[in-house]
Every structure is written in C-alpha cells, then in structure tokens.
C-alpha cells in the first residue's frame, strides 16, 4: 500500500504480510476513526491519537466516538485495527474549492495559461 493512498476501509489481517506494530503505526497516523478489536473480540471505535512503543509495556491511547477517554490499550491486548471511519485528511474540501475556483475563472474567461 502506498503512503499517499487513503487507508479508509482497510481491514488488515495480522500475519506474515502485515504485523500488528505496522497496523498500529498506520492507525496512529490515520486522521479518522478506527475500530480497535481486542484479543477477546471486544471492539472500541474511536480516534487513536497516541501510541508509545518505547516503554516496557507498549500501549495506544484512544478517544472513543463520543469523545470520552483517553482509553489506554496495551499492544498485547489488540488483535487488529479496522480503518472504519472517514479519512478526514483525504482533501475533499480543497478539491471542491479548486473545482469551484476553476469553474468561476472559466465563466469569467480569466483562466490563466498553465505557466503564467
């Protein structure tokens, strides 16, 4: 998976192709809600805002969908993390602004040359 691709909708299977540590790093970097699946099957949906892998017992920190927390969850208590929420860094509003601006320039006949 490329770094620039959105992870929205990703359902990683922890195994040979991707490790739990890699999935946690991706979840920490992801700007949307995820679903943390615990070892016992329990699920917590929320935003992973922190992870600390440099301590004897590594953990992540999560605010749940209602904003409650932070909840600390040990790496050892995580089965996987599902990228279930919308990726808020996908740039939709900026793309919309560019389209609107371009449309407005075309309507007024002021579209600049590409190298202007």
């Amino acid at each position, binding site marked *: 998976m490329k770094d620039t691709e959105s992870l929205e909708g990703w359902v990683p299977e922890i195994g040979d192709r991707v490790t739990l540590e890699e999935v946690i790093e991706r979840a920490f970097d992801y700007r*949307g809600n995820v679903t943390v699946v615990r070892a016992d099957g329990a699920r917590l949906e929320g935003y992973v805002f922190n992870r600390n892998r440099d301590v004897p017992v590594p953990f992540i920190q999560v605010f749940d969908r209602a*904003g409650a927390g932070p909840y600390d969850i040990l790496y050892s208590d995580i089965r996987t993390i599902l990228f279930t929420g919308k990726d808020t860094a996908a740039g939709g509003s900026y793309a919309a*602004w560019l389209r609107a601006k371009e449309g407005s320039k075309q309507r007024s006949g002021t579209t600049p040359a590409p190298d202007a």
Partner: protein
Amino acid sequence: MSVPLSQMWAVASYVVKQRLAGRARYPLVLMLEPLFRCNLACAGCGKIQYPAQILRKDLTVEQCLRAVEECGAPIVSIPGGEPLMYPEIGRLVQELVARKKYVYLCTNALLLREKLDADVFAPSKYLSFSIHMDGLREEHDEAVCRDGVYDEAVEAIRAALRRGFRVTTNTTLFDGANPLRTREFFDTMMDLGVEGMMISPGYSYAKAPDQEHFLRRQRAHELFSRILSSPKRRWKFNQSPLFLQFLMGKRDYECTPWGNPTYNVFGWQRPCYLLQEGYAATFQELIETTKWEHYGRKSGNDKCRDCMVHCGYEPTAVNHTFSSWRGFRDTVAATLTGRF
C-alpha cells in the same frame, strides 16, 4: 525589529537565566492549542483534519494554565484551530496577561470585530493579535480557500488598532509566491499600521490538502533572498533578524524543536509544533523522553529535511543572539540598519 523593549527584556532575561542555570533545553514560546476547530479549511494547513468528536473538544482554561506553568516560557502563542472559536478565549487571555505572559493570539480575524465589539479583550502590552495574512487579497483568499477573507481581516486589523491593541501579521509563503507582490503586501501592512510582520515558509504537512506548493530549501532561500535583499526601512518584522538571514540562506542553523513546545487536547506533542510523533503527559516527560537526536536537518530525518519554519529555527536564532558576542552584534546591527 518591532518587538517592544519590555518584551525584548523579558525574553533576554529569561534566556540568560536559563543559560546561567545550565539548562540545555528550554522553551521560548509555548504553542497552546485549546481546540482544533476552525472556520476555514486552508490549503496548506494540516492541523484540523480530525473526526468530529476531536474537533468538538476544548481544553479547559485550567488545563491551559497548568501547561503554561509547567512550561514556563515567557511567550504564549495561541493558534489552533481558530482560537476566537474557543468559548473561554477572553478568560484565558485575561489569566495569561495577569501572569505577565506575552500572548500572541493567532487568528484569521473572521470573528475578531465581533469579539472586539463584545469587549471580550482589553488592550495590553502583553496581548497581540497575530493576524493570519498570506499576501494581498488574491493570494490570501486563494491560500485560505475562501473569497472575502482578506477584506474582513483588513477591517478587523483597523478595528483592533483603533481600539489600541497591538496587531502583528503572520504570513506563510509557499512555492510560487511572487516576490514583488510580497513586497507590495509588506507595504500594505505597514500602511495599515501593524506593529510588525512575521514570515515563514510553509511546512509540508503530510495531512495538508495541497501537497504541491510546499517550498523546498533551496527554493525557499531564493524566494526570501529576492523578497528581503533590499528591505525598505519602513518594514518592521516581529521576529529575529538572524532568522530572516537564515531564510535568505545567509546563515546555516539547526532546528531547536523544543524551543516552541506544543500543548493541545492530546497532551504535549512530540517533537514539535509541526510533527506529531506522539504525546507526553507532562512537559517534563516531553523534554526528558523525546528522542531529540532523531529530529532536525542533521538527523537525516526526511520530515525535517526541508523544514525552515520559525517554530524550530527562530529559537535557534534567539539563542544565537544571546550565546555569542557575534550573534548579539549581528542582531543589533540588523536591527539598527534594517538590513538583513
């Protein structure tokens, strides 16, 4: 340089105290983000892309004041998000001013006239509105992705100045910025009567919507050289002249990532205002457990390679001023001559 003498003295005496105390790492400016909500979605900003429950969160005033105490920096900058959307911004600023902290309230100014009319703030030498202005009308409205923002900000600047507030501007420049238009912009801001201007290249936030216009280092040197090589005497900058020389490529500085530590709804951000590599629960934990050697240009960290942003390099410039006679002399010379 347009920083008031009392503020210069507060910073200078603070730096000297830290050095006499033998502190290797000390903060100069606390970046206090009480919220991430914003009423704009600027192309070059990677600060506000969060799920709704995070955007709804606010720090309490008490959390903010604890962070200010913990950190001890003489200057508190309040960015965000848009700080004028913070429900307790008036009380927060009042408390900070009472503690004699120099406050830079960094705002896009869309709500400023409304807050001034409601007497949310009182003029003080400790309070400056730092208005986000990325250029003249066309450039600024393009940068903030909304028409009309420049005009509103100009009106808000006039209103704040009329009421006796300190007003500065904060400008981020991206690839493609026109040096002549930027110089014209400086003239316009001086005509408006702002106390000083702050300029910086944008940081290439991985989460920013526009990934095409961030300045690489060499391009940044070229751009700032063209803008600043023959500065007008009337231009006033609210930042270290040595930092401006660094932007022009005349000085080679290393980043001081702990110089402007950041506190927000997640805690103390590692390692700096721009990168989010994790959070510490306390300021002490931030300073003691962050692997500082992993950051800065010399570290080889890709994320730091092209960064020349003031939150990392202005503290280096300030430290240079107070750590060597040559740095002090060069600062005084640039301040007196107005040349960089």
